[in-house]
């Protein structure tokens, strides 16, 4: 783990984070300039920035807490790299890291991390995240995104919404079956318990948020559900 948390790794993490920050600052300057050109007031732009900073705090707390398992497994430097500008969705990061370590027979823990496992984890995490950059950023650059969107649905926004919804349902059904249901059917009740509790708590949390009429609390549903699922599985199954 010394290599994963050494100065060189922190330096590389800083370079990745700085690149994301540079992109943001270049865009910021241009948006401000063009905003003034089209007649927007300074105050409007400042309001947008201020409200965005405030409204970012909640999601950042969720991300902050979600970093714990990643830091446990891979150390602070890699977690900073992945979360600051490395695609960052915590479940994707944990999943790719788990698969990367598992493929060399290691566990995603500080104790189980060998040099070979670390290398495989880093290659897998990087390779699996560039797809978003290529399709998202380059798709935007060449003007493909608006065209694809219109083709899939034949220009029907309702059909497009339906296609997107059912595809996401398909992805997560498959993952639930693979990570929770099948282990349970073959007698490993820990993952099944975690999965069921995670599902129920997330559902309950959102219902509670609706009753309380505090939509911003929705930001915490994943964190709460994960903690509840982990705790229930550990206490009930071990």
């Amino acid at each position, binding site marked *: 783990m010394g*290599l994963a*948390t050494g100065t060189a*790794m922190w330096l*590389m*993490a800083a370079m990745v984070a700085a690149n*994301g*920050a540079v*992109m943001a600052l270049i865009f910021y300057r241009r*948006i401000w300039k*063009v905003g003034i050109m*089209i007649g927007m007031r300074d105050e409007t732009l400042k*309001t*947008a920035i201020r409200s965005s900073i405030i*409204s*970012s705090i909640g*999601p950042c707390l969720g991300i*902050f807490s979600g970093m714990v398992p990643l*830091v446990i497994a891979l*150390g602070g430097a*890699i*977690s*900073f790299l992945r*979360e*600051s*500008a*490395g695609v*960052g969705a915590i*479940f994707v990061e944990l*999943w790719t890291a*788990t698969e990367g370590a598992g493929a*060399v027979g290691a566990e995603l823990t500080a104790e189980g991390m060998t*040099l070979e496992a670390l*290398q*495989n984890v*880093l290659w897998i995490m990087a*390779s699996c995240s560039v*797809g978003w950059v290529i399709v*998202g950023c380059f798709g*935007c*650059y060449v003007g493909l995104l608006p065209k*694809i969107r219109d083709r899939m649905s034949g220009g029907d926004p309702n059909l497009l919404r*339906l296609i997107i919804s*059912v595809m996401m*349902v398909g*992805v*997560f*059904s*498959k993952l*639930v079956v693979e990570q929770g249901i*099948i282990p349970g059917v073959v007698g490993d009740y*820990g*993952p099944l318990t975690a999965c069921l509790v*995670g599902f*129920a708590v*997330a*559902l309950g949390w959102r219902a509670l948020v609706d009753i309380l009429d505090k939509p911003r609390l929705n930001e915490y*549903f*994943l964190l709460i559900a994960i903690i509840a699922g*982990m705790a229930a599985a*550990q206490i009930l199954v071990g």
Partner: protein
Amino acid sequence: MPLDEKEKILEKEYYSHINRYGFITSAVHVLLIFLPAVYVYLVMGRFVRLEAFLTAFATIFPILLPIYFIEPISYFTVLSVAGTYISFLAGNISNMRLPVGAIAQESADVELGSPEGELVGGLGIIASQLMLTVISFVGALVCVAIIRLLPQSVKVAFKYVLPAMFGAMFSQFGPRAPKYAAITLVLTFILEYFFHIPGPVTLLIACFGIALLATALYRRGIWVKR
């Protein structure tokens, strides 16, 4: 100022600039993101077993492949051009970019889809990225200290993170299309448990099969929300 004049300014002064620098920083990012792996390779003196890399890659890539396309296509209109570049470079879209961008537009009282909305939405996502950089740095430092205090039983429980997370994520999408959710759950279970169909193939069937079914039913007016 008339709308078409604003749009002309955006066309000339905004999109070309954002696309140029968005492309450059994205290209730099693709190179930088591999640096840690290259560094460990140089220290170790050899590449990780190709079989190990391919095993993990073949498990993950087919699952992420539809998501690489689904997310940019579905989020593009909401995120704006600048927001799309930042979001797909640095992630955390549904849990951060979308709500923050929307709140920025609401607070600044600009119309969605207007030139002002495009700029303000972009500003919101920029602010969220700068916040994320700071918070993830602090988190990376503080988490290390917190972890030292954690008991062993807590550390062991982290093996349940993924099933708990997928259960929670399913609760986000399943109720939106419960009939399709029931079909895909039963179908993927049968394929994987009884027929031992490889995961990536199951995913393609679950994902694109259900999309085709949904399109066909939609065109016949079946299971369509009114």
